């Protein structure tokens, strides 16, 4: 299974004995079969007898009298005698017997029951009833519970270096600082799609020759010999044998990854990408048989890359062949498709950094990437990224800067100093200051005569410096600068590079809470936030473009790469439409009775996946008009339960042929309810359906996890997972499994020992939407993903306060993000 959702302040569980079980199951501690076994038995036995004496020797009257302190004191004595030899004096674990610390979120009652039934391991009867209750009360208070851990070790902010994503984003904005940072707001995405197009007849460029000026949603044309026509198919006065056409705008990248761009054309064209001078494809010469051009590019999420296609149909002596052109792509985890309109923006778009270097993965112990360590591989990748950046800076940023400052007349040398100072200032998150940049610039200019080498040297020094790599090493900066550094890092994984933001920093208007909130509000509605949020959801739901979701082809014919690609778009689109709608309602996210669909999905999943009649879905808050090719589905409260029953999620938490209630349950316990599960101690292979032909999947799981030792965790896991049994291994809604009806009843017992029963996924979704426990888990997850620090480090009651505020805002996710950014920028906590 994937990431645990332990709060950041919990110690990382040791994995000495844990073998992650194939089924994501959790077993109780199993005795090690080693040479110490016999010894342990003897020792434990001896201690047991001693303990009885000790307990008897204590004051029996004080137990059960309702005095919690006295009860804990008695529990402490028993724990020292019977438990500490294996679990350690303060439950920290012992190397030889039980290395994992005793921490978790079970209630005192649950703990007492567990101890009664299973502890001490070699003689469970030795500690039962009131003794077990006393021990439970003691350990819960002393070190087991989350509250105890907080008391014992107040979490602190830890210094972190930039993560891989943060490095990539920071470099992107450093580049764009010079070129202009393009802010793509949600409204822009909805309103501006496609590419700006101009069509000219003949060879000329004048007004008379320009016959069509329009926005083309996509580039996919077969002009044949008649040439480009008006949208209604009528003649535009263009000579099909001699014309030129031009498309320009930007390509919206929502997710960092490797993309393949494909242009197919039987006509001469050139395609610039990323920067006007960077010709991605040069097919100036049209040569028979050379009609397909593929380019693979590593692109950054939340960024817009300029694209320009110039097509030129030349009249030939003899026969001029028909002309055609199309622009397609293969996004990460997707299949080839015509580049969709909502991934295109018409008009001028500033140049954007193309960074090929891929950073090594960061630590993800707590379910989100953090920069907590350095190693040679990482260091080498930083160098490579810095050099790549330096090369682009010297061939693109510097020449462009020269052009922009042509009128300044201060001389090339001075201009270079100014350019470098500005670059160093933004990279080191401070105001331009020639004195502060002097060290780097002098070193670089003294080392080389060649301008390009000077730039490269200065940039390498700048980007390898801890000033760049450790974003919070900024106590010597102004309060506004520090606030902006943190808000940019929280929301965009980046640094302040936008000109308007730098001005606000200079004015020092971000120092107080209102100023910071205003900044966060402005920054939240931005493609960069959307990209980070999407990544968070992918982590949360454990879906990744790299997933292999192929299933048994006989059982699930038609569940192919194209369906999976559509499912990815559907899930991403659904999340976007909820989060970026007016209400931005968390409850919709986990319980909406609709989703986004495509014709292909409707074909595969049937009626509940039909597109809704737009007339009847007048719910003003959520529209999906931005998403080409996707439509809102009809409402069906059984089939659609927000992200929880989305087929991509259901298929991810399923086996090749059957569902996996355990995977689904673990996901729900950990990720949705925010509970802690110890990792399993042993690997189990799920029981084979072939060996138990009479059992349903649910029954097989119940059988396999029936031992008491399994039930400690599986009593939590299974009932949650079972509630999703109506969804098969490809997320298709079903009421029968073979010839047996589905039983999707389930339940959950909360931290407050409240028992909830579910009839189906619908009940589960409604519970997740309204449960304060799940809401708090969501808030904490969001906080930690965005800030990469434990929320408790910002105050012990911060989570509670923020969850309350979340509720008051109507569970508005965007507002939550703003508050998270504001909290992350509070100076006193640093």
């Amino acid at each position, binding site marked *: 299974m994937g990431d645990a959702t332990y709060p950041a302040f919990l110690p990382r569980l040791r994995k000495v004995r844990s073998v992650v079980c194939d089924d994501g199951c959790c077993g109780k501690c199993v005795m090690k079969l080693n040479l110490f076994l016999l010894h342990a038995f003897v020792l434990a036995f001896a201690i047991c007898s001693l303990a009885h004496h000790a307990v008897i020797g204590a004051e029996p009257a004080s137990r059960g009298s309702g005095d919690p302190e006295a009860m804990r004191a008695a529990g402490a004595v028993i724990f020292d005698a019977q438990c500490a030899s294996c679990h350690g004096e303060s439950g920290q674990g012992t190397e030889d017997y039980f290395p994992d610390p005793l921490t978790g979120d079970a209630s005192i009652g649950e703990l007492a029951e567990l101890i009664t039934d299973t502890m001490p391991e070699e003689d469970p009867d030795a500690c039962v009833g009131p003794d077990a209750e006393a021990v439970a009360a003691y350990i819960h208070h002393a070190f087991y519970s989350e509250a105890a851990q907080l008391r014992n070790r107040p979490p602190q902010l830890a*210094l972190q270096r930039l993560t891989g994503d943060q490095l990539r984003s920071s470099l992107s904005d450093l580049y764009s600082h010079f070129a202009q940072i393009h802010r793509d707001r949600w409204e822009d995405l909805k309103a501006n799609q496609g590419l700006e197009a101009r069509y000219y007849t003949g060879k000329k460029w004048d007004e008379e020759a320009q016959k069509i000026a329009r926005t083309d949603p996509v580039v996919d044309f077969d002009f044949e010999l008649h040439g480009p026509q008006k949208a209604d198919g009528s003649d535009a006065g263009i000579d099909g044998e001699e014309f030129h056409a031009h498309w320009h705008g930007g390509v919206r990248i929502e997710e960092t990854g490797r993309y393949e761009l494909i242009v197919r054309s039987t006509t001469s064209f050139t395609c610039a990408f990323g920067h006007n001078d960077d010709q991605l494809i*040069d097919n100036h010469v049209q040569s028979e048989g050379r009609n397909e051009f593929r380019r693979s590019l590593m692109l950054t999420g939340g960024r817009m890359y300029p694209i320009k296609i110039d097509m*030129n149909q030349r009249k030939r002596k003899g026969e001029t062949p028909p002309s055609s052109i199309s622009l397609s792509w293969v996004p990460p985890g997707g299949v080839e498709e015509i580049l969709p309109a909502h991934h295109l923006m018409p008009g001028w778009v500033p140049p954007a950094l193309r960074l090929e270097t891929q950073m090594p993965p960061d630590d993800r112990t707590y379910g989100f990437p953090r920069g907590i360590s350095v190693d*040679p591989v990482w260091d080498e990748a930083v160098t490579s990224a810095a*050099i790549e950046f330096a090369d682009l800076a010297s061939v693109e940023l510097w020449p462009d800067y020269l052009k922009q400052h042509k009128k300044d007349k201060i001389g090339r040398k001075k201009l270079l100093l100014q350019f470098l100072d500005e670059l160093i200032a933004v990279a080191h998150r401070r105001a331009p200051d020639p004195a502060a940049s002097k060290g780097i610039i002098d070193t670089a200019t003294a*080392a080389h005569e060649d301008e*390009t080498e000077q730039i490269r040297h200065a940039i390498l020094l700048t980007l390898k410096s801890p000033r760049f790599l450790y974003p919070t090493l900024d106590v010597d900066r102004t309060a506004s600068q520090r606030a902006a550094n943190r808000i940019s890092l929280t929301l965009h994984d980046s640094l302040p590079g936008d000109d308007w933001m730098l001005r606000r920093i200079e004015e020092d208007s971000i120092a107080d809470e209102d100023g910071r909130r205003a900044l966060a509000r402005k920054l939240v509605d931005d493609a960069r936030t959307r990209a980070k949020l999407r990544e968070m959801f992918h982590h949360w739901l454990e879906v990744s473009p790299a997933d292999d979701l192929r299933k048994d082809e006989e059982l699930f014919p038609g569940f192919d790469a194209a369906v999976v690609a559509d499912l990815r778009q559907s899930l991403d689109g659904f999340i976007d439409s909820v989060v970026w709608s007016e209400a931005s309602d968390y409850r919709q996210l986990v319980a909406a009775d609709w989703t986004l669909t495509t014709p292909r999905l409707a074909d595969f999943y049937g009626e509940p996946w039909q597109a809704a009649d737009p007339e009847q879905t007048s719910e003003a808050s959520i529209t999906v008009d931005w998403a080409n090719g996707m439509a809102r589905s009809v409402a069906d409260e059984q089939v659609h339960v927000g992200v929880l029953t989305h087929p991509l999620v259901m298929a991810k938490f399923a086996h090749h042929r059957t569902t996996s209630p355990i995977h689904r349950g673990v996901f729900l316990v950990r990720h949705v309810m925010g509970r802690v599960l110890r990792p399993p101690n042993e690997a189990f292979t799920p029981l084979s359906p072939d060996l138990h032909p009479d059992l349903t999947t649910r029954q097989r799981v119940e059988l396999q996890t029936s031992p008491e030792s399994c039930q400690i965790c599986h009593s939590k896991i299974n009932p949650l997972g079972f509630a999703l049994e109506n969804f098969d291994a490809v997320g298709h809604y079903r009421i029968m499994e073979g010839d047996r009806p589905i039983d999707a009843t389930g339940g959950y017992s909360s931290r407050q020992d409240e028992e909830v029963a579910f009839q189906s996924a619908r009940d589960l979704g409604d519970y997740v939407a309204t449960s304060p426990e799940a809401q708090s888990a969501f808030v904490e997850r969001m906080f930690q993903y965005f800030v990469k620090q434990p929320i408790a480090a910002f105050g012990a009651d911060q989570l509670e306060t923020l969850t309350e505020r979340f509720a008051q805002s109507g569970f508005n996710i965007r507002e939550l993000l703003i508050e998270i950014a504001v909290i992350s920028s509070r100076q006193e906590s640093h």
Partner: protein
Amino acid sequence: MPTSRRRFLQQTGISAAAAHFATNLPSLALGAESTNRQRLVFVFSPNGVIPDHFWPEVDKKQGESEMEFKRILKPLKPFRDQTVTMHGLCNQIQGDGDGHMRGIGCLLTGVELFPGDIQGGSDTPAGWSQGISIDQFLKNQLQADPRTRTRFGSLEFGVMVPDRADTWTRMSYSGPNQPVAPIDNPYKMFDKLYGQAKNRELLASVLDDLSDDFRTLEKMVSVEDRHLLQQHQALVRKVEKDLQVELAAKSDAIGHAVPELPPNVEDQNDNMPQITRMQTELLVNSFAADFARIASFQITNSVGNAKLRWLDIDEGHHALSHEPDSNEDSYEKLIKINTWYCEQVAHLAKRLQETPEPGGEGSMLDHTTIVWTNELGKGNSHTRNNIPFVLVGGGLGIRGNRAIDFKRTPHNRFLMTLAERMGFPQETFGNPDFCGDGVLTGV
């Protein structure tokens, strides 16, 4: 690495002074390894030549004479014993494309151009070549054999090649419809050859300054946080140490003596002489380091219109080449231009001659053949008969000091001869219709 070879290269390095020193010690060149490398360089200059001042007289009966250096070829006189002129080779490829397009596009490929949409000054429009060029073909052959495989196989140098990909700017093809772009910016070529090494050196030079940064910033953080910074600092120091070892080892090793280019030379017409020199140095260097055994050196392009102002010629080369022979002024200028190109070839030959063959006998020129060529025989007639093919050097083992006349022979047979002499005889190369009689006789 045998000591003699290593010592030898340490001595030669790449600087002219060192090379000069080494040539006086021929015994040094007799290393333990005798690899017998064979190399080919195709040097291209555009717009045809002035035949009367280019071609030596050839005995009509014999079809061959001793070399006679007329005005244009005079710079090659010092290489008399390794120079051969090959009159009578004709690029007879027909089909799509104008004379200049077919002139360059079929020159090394010996095959037609695809139909396409690029319209020249006459004839039908065309696209790219339908086949591989001889340099890329030979590269593939050499790279297929571990004994002759090199880091790049082939290198494509250019000088002032216009920044557009079209039939006139591409001579080399890795296959049908696959033109290979020459690199005409010496700094870019330098990056390709030595970029990695240069980046390592740059990195080494910044690490020490980084340590200062760490020391300053350490003071700003808590004791716990300092731990990560200290770890990072230790990493920086380790990288620094490793790099010192690596770079020291490199400067000892052969082929990594990185040449120095003059800084800030911009890609401009008037810098053409300097760029040509820089590219020549890089070419000689990469051959010495055995980065490649095949190269092309394309000065401008077909229809190249460089203005050779340093010769006091302000008109563009192509424009001049259209003038009738009766225009004495332009006639004289064209002779000067052609002579300048010849000087560049001679300089390349000189640099190769000055550099002893690494691990082998004699100079690098003894193991390299320069094939100097052109897209046209003569500019104002656009003829592709009598393409000016001049061979300099001993790479192909062809005896020098000869002016040969092949009397209207398709140039495909010359391409086949190159393949055969490099050890890869072919039944045909390019369009088989022009290969009927096999390799050239009398070479």
